[in-house]
């Protein structure tokens, strides 16, 4: 039996050691306060810039006017809300299953070397500039769609390019959350002769739920916020689309297209579209919160 000199072995620790956790918490609080401040600053900034036109024409003008034509003082943003919503939804609906399947593939189907190669590939795709995606969409995808149904620049093209762009986000986040599924579950499932698919659908996916949810949130954010690529392939016509082949304009494309030339009220109105976008996201965040609460 090991006979210690108890007192000298565990000397009274210094103040810092006793206070370590305390300091840590306050350090962390400070850091997250910075993160919080950024959000408030951005919100405040958007509000400040949007205020002039809001004061002049009121909020309802942005939903009731005949069209978006800031040069002629009409500011209807509704078609662009549709544009944003539809491209985002289409892309998320496509990318989520594709991304999750990709991640499952890496984890449970692909042999090691293929899995890590595939992961590398996906990581790369996360970093290709949106211009490049847009460029590719414009010179490859749009002419293809044009052959199907002119003009080619369309909601469909937007959804396709966005899907490619957000796929890495969901794939990588899903991949990381599958890595954390306790192996006992898999062992247990295998021991009962469950099929791979049954194991994945009933055990792996539910246990990775919160990670997948994060992935969906992040990809949705990226889909909503994406600007350049969408601007290049969507056609940017301000209209509520009747079909997937119709051109649409998203709120972000609206800002990017016109901000460089906008003055006074027009400029201010573009900030309203930014604010509105934020509004859309806040609504989604609240929805996500409710879903999350429901689930837990």
């Amino acid at each position, binding site marked *: 039996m090991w006979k210690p000199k108890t007192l000298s072995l565990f000397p009274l620790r210094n103040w810092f050691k006793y206070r370590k956790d305390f300091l840590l918490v306050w350090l962390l609080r400070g850091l997250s306060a910075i*993160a919080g401040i950024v959000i408030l600053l*951005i919100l405040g900034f958007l509000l400040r810039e949007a205020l002039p036109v809001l004061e002049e024409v009121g909020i309802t003008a942005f939903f009731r006017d005949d069209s978006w034509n800031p040069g002629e003082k009409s500011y209807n943003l509704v078609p662009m809300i549709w544009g944003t919503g539809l491209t985002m939804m289409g892309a998320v609906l496509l990318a989520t299953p594709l991304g999750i399947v990709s991640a499952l593939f890496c984890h*449970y189907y692909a042999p090691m070397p293929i899995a890590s190669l595939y992961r590398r590939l996906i990581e790369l795709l996360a970093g290709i500039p949106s211009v490049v995606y847009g460029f590719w969409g414009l010179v490859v995808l749009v002419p293809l769609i044009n052959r199907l149904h002119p003009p080619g620049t369309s909601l469909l093209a937007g959804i396709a390019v966005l899907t490619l762009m957000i796929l*890495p986000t969901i794939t990588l986040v899903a991949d990381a959350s599958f*890595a954390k599924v306790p192996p006992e579950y898999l062992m247990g499932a295998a021991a009962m002769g469950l099929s*791979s698919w049954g194991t994945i659908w009933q055990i792996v996916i539910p246990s990775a739920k*919160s*990670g997948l949810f994060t992935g969906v949130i992040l990809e949705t954010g990226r889909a909503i916020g994406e600007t350049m690529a969408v601007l290049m392939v969507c056609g940017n016509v301000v209209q509520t689309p009747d079909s997937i082949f119709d051109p649409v304009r998203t709120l972000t494309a609206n800002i990017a297209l016109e901000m460089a030339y906008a003055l006074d009220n027009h400029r201010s109105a573009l900030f309203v579209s930014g604010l509105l976008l934020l509004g859309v*996201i806040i609504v989604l*965040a609240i929805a996500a919160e409710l879903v999350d609460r429901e689930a837990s």
Partner: protein
Amino acid sequence: MNLSGLKMIRQNQYGLDKVISLFFWLVPLIVTSLFIWILGDIIRGGIGQLNWAFLTTAPLDTGRQGGIAPILVSTLLILGVCLAVSLPIGIGTAILLAEFTPNHNWFGRLVRRSLDVLAGVPSIVFGLFGNAFFAKTLGLGFSILSGGLTLACMVLPILIRATETGLSAVPQEYRLSSASLGISRTSTLWHLLLPAATPGLLVGLVLGIGRAIAETAALIFTSGYVDRMPTSLLDSGRSLSIHIFDLSMNVTGGDANAYGSALVLILILLLINAIASYLSGKYSKTLKV
């Protein structure tokens, strides 16, 4: 038994399961071929431009001729500033949310949702904000610093969310047994939780770097358009992505060099990702074993 890395492929499969597995191979195949298509286009267009001179000389004739040396330097500096600022803030916030804020706590929920909102703010709005706040209010002007700080705001939600996911996936047993040994939360965090959460952190890092290095709209208004070799962080510097954007959308006859620059960007990304995963692997090893 240590089972992490279980593979289902090792089981042989029958019936419906076989069909589903085929599907699981099909999707990556499609995704891969699509991406090889895109990457192939870039490589085909860019490989001809790629040589030592391209990397070491300044652009000429608005980028149609010459190389990208100053742009490469600016890009790396902007990315450096972005990561130096966003990593500590991001990881710190993630730790606070995952380890020190109960799940149902209203504050935690509020911060999380605010971050989700931040993740959806379009990059051009970040650009205008960065221009108004960092460049004007804080007086940093068009500079690498302004650009890096703006990007830091952009990648923050990605970093935080991914790190947090990594942390919350660490088994509760580790926390319990560590606490039962009277180990402080700081040490538990450093020696147990963070190493175990590195895969999540790495994903955040890779996605964040990807987003930062690919960013155009936010940088036009902050780090600027100047393609001179920067001499300090307060100099304006053009990033690769802006260069690519300018060459392909604004400069007639710039496509070839745009492809060349895109290829360089991808190679840099490959390198950075490799370094990041190497370092994180090393980190989790040195702390774990």
